[in-house]
């Protein structure tokens, strides 16, 4: 027989066009936003403690680069540690919960209820419970990351495509084989949905924890600069937070493309 069918690929797009929209457009958006910000601060002559101009922020960033760098590392470390802890606890919990109906019925509503508690409100309590060190910060990051990871992993594990479930049945796979060969790999794309959501929340969690009872970190830097009316420095810290969040997100997206190249198609 002859193989005449062409390989099925996504519709071809001119390469230059896709590169333009992937890299040039985001940069353009960034530049435009900065220009607008600069124009507002210049035209309305806003006091710098209310709205510093982009140049003032850039100046703060350069002048206090050591201070900002050290504090960024603190926040980054808390974020990553909390995030990894949430994966280490969340994924196994999702596995356990979906392994049995009884457990699912018992634990799932509880999880959803806990998820509804605003984690921000817990931050001051964590200081009371866990003190002023880094641990309460890591713990808050863990808390905000934990639920999206558990819920998306559990959703992925319990929504295995029907035709694959049937395939397993026709081969008479045992529970472990079904899990290892079919259900777990099929859940990975969903897991990444949760991880990407969690990583953006993780940075926010770290900052909020640092607002309360911290002596270092970008969140602390924002609070401290606010009290000394050094708004430019606060802005610099916020921009760094944004950058950190974006970089972590795209790092995760890149890992996802490596792990599940089939995810967006199939």
């Amino acid at each position, binding site marked *: 027989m002859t193989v005449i069918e062409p*390989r*099925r690929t996504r519709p071809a797009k001119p390469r230059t066009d896709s590169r333009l929209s992937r890299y040039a457009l985001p940069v353009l958006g960034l530049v435009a936003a900065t220009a607008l910000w600069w124009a507002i601060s210049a035209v309305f002559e806003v006091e710098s403690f209310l709205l510093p101009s982009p140049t003032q922020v850039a100046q703060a960033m350069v002048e206090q680069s050591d201070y900002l760098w050290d504090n960024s590392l603190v926040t980054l470390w808390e974020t990553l540690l909390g995030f990894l802890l949430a994966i280490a606890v969340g994924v196994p919990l999702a596995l356990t919960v979906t392994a049995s109906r009884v457990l699912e019925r018992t634990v799932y509503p509880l999880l959803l209820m806990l998820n509804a508690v605003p984690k921000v409100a817990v931050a001051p309590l964590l200081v009371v419970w866990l003190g002023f060190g880094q641990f309460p910060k890591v713990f808050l990051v863990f808390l905000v990351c934990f639920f999206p990871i558990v819920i998306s992993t559990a959703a992925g594990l319990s929504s295995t495509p029907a035709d694959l479930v049937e395939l397993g*049945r026709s081969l008479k796979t045992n529970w472990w084989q079904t899990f290892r060969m079919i259900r777990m790999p099929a859940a990975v794309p969903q897991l990444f949905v949760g991880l990407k959501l969690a990583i953006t929340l993780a940075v926010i969690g770290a900052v909020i924890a640092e607002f309360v009872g911290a002596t270092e970190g970008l969140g602390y830097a924002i609070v401290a600069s606010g009290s000394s009316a050094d708004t430019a420095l606060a802005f610099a810290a916020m921009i760094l937070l944004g950058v950190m969040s974006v970089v972590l997100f795209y790092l995760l997206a890149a890992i996802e493309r490596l792990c599940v190249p089939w995810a967006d198609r199939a």
Partner: protein
Amino acid sequence: MIGIRNVSQIYRTRAGDVEALRDLSLEVADGEFVAIVGRSGCGKSSLLRLVAGLQDATSGEITVAGTPVQGPRRDIGFMFQRPALLPWRSVIDNVLLPTEVFKLNKAAARTRAHELLDLVGLNGFEKRLPHELSGGMQQRVSLCRALIQQPRVLLMDEPFSALDALTRADLTVELQRLHMKEASTVLFVTHSVDEAVLLADRVVVLSPRPGRLREIVKIDIARPRSLGHDGHSAELGELRAQLHDLLMTPEEVAR
């Protein structure tokens, strides 16, 4: 090889009982290719799932190779309407899946997988992922997977129905060749008269609601067969017309 004796199947639904099959009996000999045709609702897919052990009959008995079917078995291969390939596994690993489940010899399985992929014209595609293949190629992989553990019986549930007409014709020809080579017993559900006539030794016509045996048409034409112009086009045409009439006319009028 396959014995279906007085099998009935009733589905209990909220709207009431649905009778899918009524008192159906059929014997399929070793190496025989039997096609089951019928309009939708005639229970042909139900029948196949019963033989596969994917569900239990309400009454009656089904045996494969002399032993009653009580659940899915290694000596029964099943091919679905959709390819049902694992999207994260390469072509070759998808074909090898049953041998991993059954813990068969790895080297031997690999050799056989390559042979099967060769047979369906997929050599060179072993490392591809399913989403990189066309629908026809995916279904070929699925066919190889169903054959990898050398089942004594191959059950096929409208395997080509989701494909375009030409790909379908290609695959029908390939299946014919595979059947001639492997000589396994095949039970093939389809609603295509062409496929039935080309492939089967016997065509079982079911009538719908509830599914009952209407007629068995023997196809005594030498293989390989083709729907094009060859020595048998007249006989094939006659059989196609006969089956067409059986499918299109209500029972009372035909008898």
